[in-house]
């Protein structure tokens, strides 16, 4: 099977300080990877660097997506190629409704006009999965949304934009039990019906309960300290990161 994402010896600086040191990672089509680690380990840095945030400077290594080197590509190009990042703190954008935003993003990505009727129908379906009130489609993007609503809106975008790889950056943080369940339901839908690959960045394990996990990576101080299958998640769940900090 061809690699979907291949990260090789990636080193990343933030404000002239090296945060990630030679990280390597391979994600195949449809696989679910979990990236765990204590606070400050560099998990979000990896997410941002993969998506090409200009504030994160890649100083070494490269990123291949579907065999194509995207290390120097702009963020929008990566998105158009099928990458998606769910933000830890989604930004508020007054004046653009959630619905219009997703529709424009879809049109730009496909270069085709999308009929409003079809779009609305699909959007309603996705919102149902996420227990979202349909009125949110007409509200300004993330403006005045609660923490949980913002995260749902991110997953809604995931379901609508249908990327082949989604990076979820702490999507479960700050959510109550019910909201986590709803969000996982959306992610599950993405796994199943779109055969989507995932990198789930988290420091807890709640979001993983109902998801099938293929690989687990433990990131500590900018290095991958351990790798394993789903059982590693359980181990960390029981024992914490103690062992990897040594």
């Amino acid at each position, binding site marked *: 099977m061809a690699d979907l994402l291949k990260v090789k010896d990636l080193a990343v600086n933030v404000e002239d300080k090296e945060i990630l040191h030679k990280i390597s990672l391979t994600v195949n089509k449809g696989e679910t990877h979990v990236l765990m680690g204590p606070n400050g380990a560099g998990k979000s840095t990896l997410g941002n660097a993969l998506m090409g945030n200009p504030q994160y400077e890649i100083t070494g290594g490269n990123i291949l997506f579907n065999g194509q080197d995207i290390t120097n590509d702009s963020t*929008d190009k990566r998105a158009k190629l099928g990458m998606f990042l769910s933000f830890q703190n989604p930004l508020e954008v007054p004046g*653009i409704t959630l619905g219009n935003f997703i529709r424009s993003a879809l049109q*730009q990505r496909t270069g085709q006009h999308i009929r409003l009727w079809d779009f609305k129908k699909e959007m309603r379906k996705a919102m149902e999965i996420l227990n979202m009130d349909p009125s949110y489609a007409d509200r300004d993007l993330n403006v005045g949304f609660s923490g949980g609503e913002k995260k749902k809106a991110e997953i809604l*975008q995931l379901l609508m*934009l249908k990327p082949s790889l989604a990076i979820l950056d702490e999507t479960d943080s700050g959510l109550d039990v019910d909201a986590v369940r709803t969000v996982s339901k959306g992610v599950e839908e993405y796994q199943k019906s779109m055969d989507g690959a995932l990198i789930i960045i988290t420091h807890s394990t709640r979001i993983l309960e109902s998801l099938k996990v293929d690989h687990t990576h433990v990131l500590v101080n900018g290095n991958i300290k351990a790798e394993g299958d789903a059982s590693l998640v359980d181990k960390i769940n029981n024992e914490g990161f103690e062992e990897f900090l040594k």
Partner: protein
Amino acid sequence: MENNTLLINAMPAPTYNWLRMNDATVKVPSDITEGNPMVTRSHEVSVGACSYEEIKDIPGGMGIDMDNYIQKSGADVLKISPGKGQKVTSPVKIDFNFVKDENTVNAVYIDASDDSDVTVIMDYSCVKELSGFAAIQTKVRIGKNARVLLIQIQRLGDKFRFFNDVASRTDDGGSFEEIQLVLSGKETYQGSRTDLYGKGSSLKTDIGYLLRGDEHLDMNYIANHIGRKTLCDIKVDGVLRDEAFKLFRGTIDLRRGAKGAVGNELEDVLLMDDNVINQTIPVILCDEDDVEGNHGATIGRLDDDLLFYMESRGMNKEEVYEMMAKARIDSVVAKIPDEETKSLISKYLEEK
């Protein structure tokens, strides 16, 4: 043709002269006639005329020269006066559609009695390529617990010179809301002054502007907090393209005795092209300790985090900028509670 010179839009507290931001000296024509707006209203509210004397005690935002210019023109004052307790359900519309190359002057007076509620929509448009001049002054008196929402849409052509002045004073619990859009105009001078006399009275101002070419916009906004617990919230959202010039002066004056007053002002300016000129001066004057004053301004390009967020959904930088420029204006338009006006604006923006 004889010309008059007016000193307008002077800041209550001036600053360094070399910045040339303190005020504006402008020429105005003296061969002026009274404009002929079309008024649409329901029978709920009475519309008539009065003399300028009746509104002389409400000082205009552009200053005394403008007041004198309007008064000397001899134009009748169009008076809208909802009675005591009257809630006018459908907006009063005053349409100024300029079709001739002439200089016009108009005055409007909204006299809202106690407990009344009225929305007035003033729409300024002209035939394409018209190089006219108009000066319009709107004065608003707000009675106890009355509410006036004044909406002004400027969608004139880029050869038109336009002076638009607003002034209001509030009684206890009165609230004045203004929504203004400046979408074109060769030269626009705009002033607004609100004297918050009444206890617990408030001002809410939302301004949106979108300028291009070598359009020029000069604004002077003043909120005087005189009564206790008065509130003001001035929000300005703008987009500048090409070689457009804009100057925004905003003064919140928290006067002694205005205990519990809160004044906020915020301007966000998105610069789209490299030859625009943006001047902003958000002033707070404070002569009272039991108050809160905040002001902020962000000027320039889009915030890096926001740009990254939008790009991560597959839009390129130019597309994001276009989308955000539209969003700024849309967010002001969205506050207009009249579908007909909203669609007029969308149509105008699409054609522009």
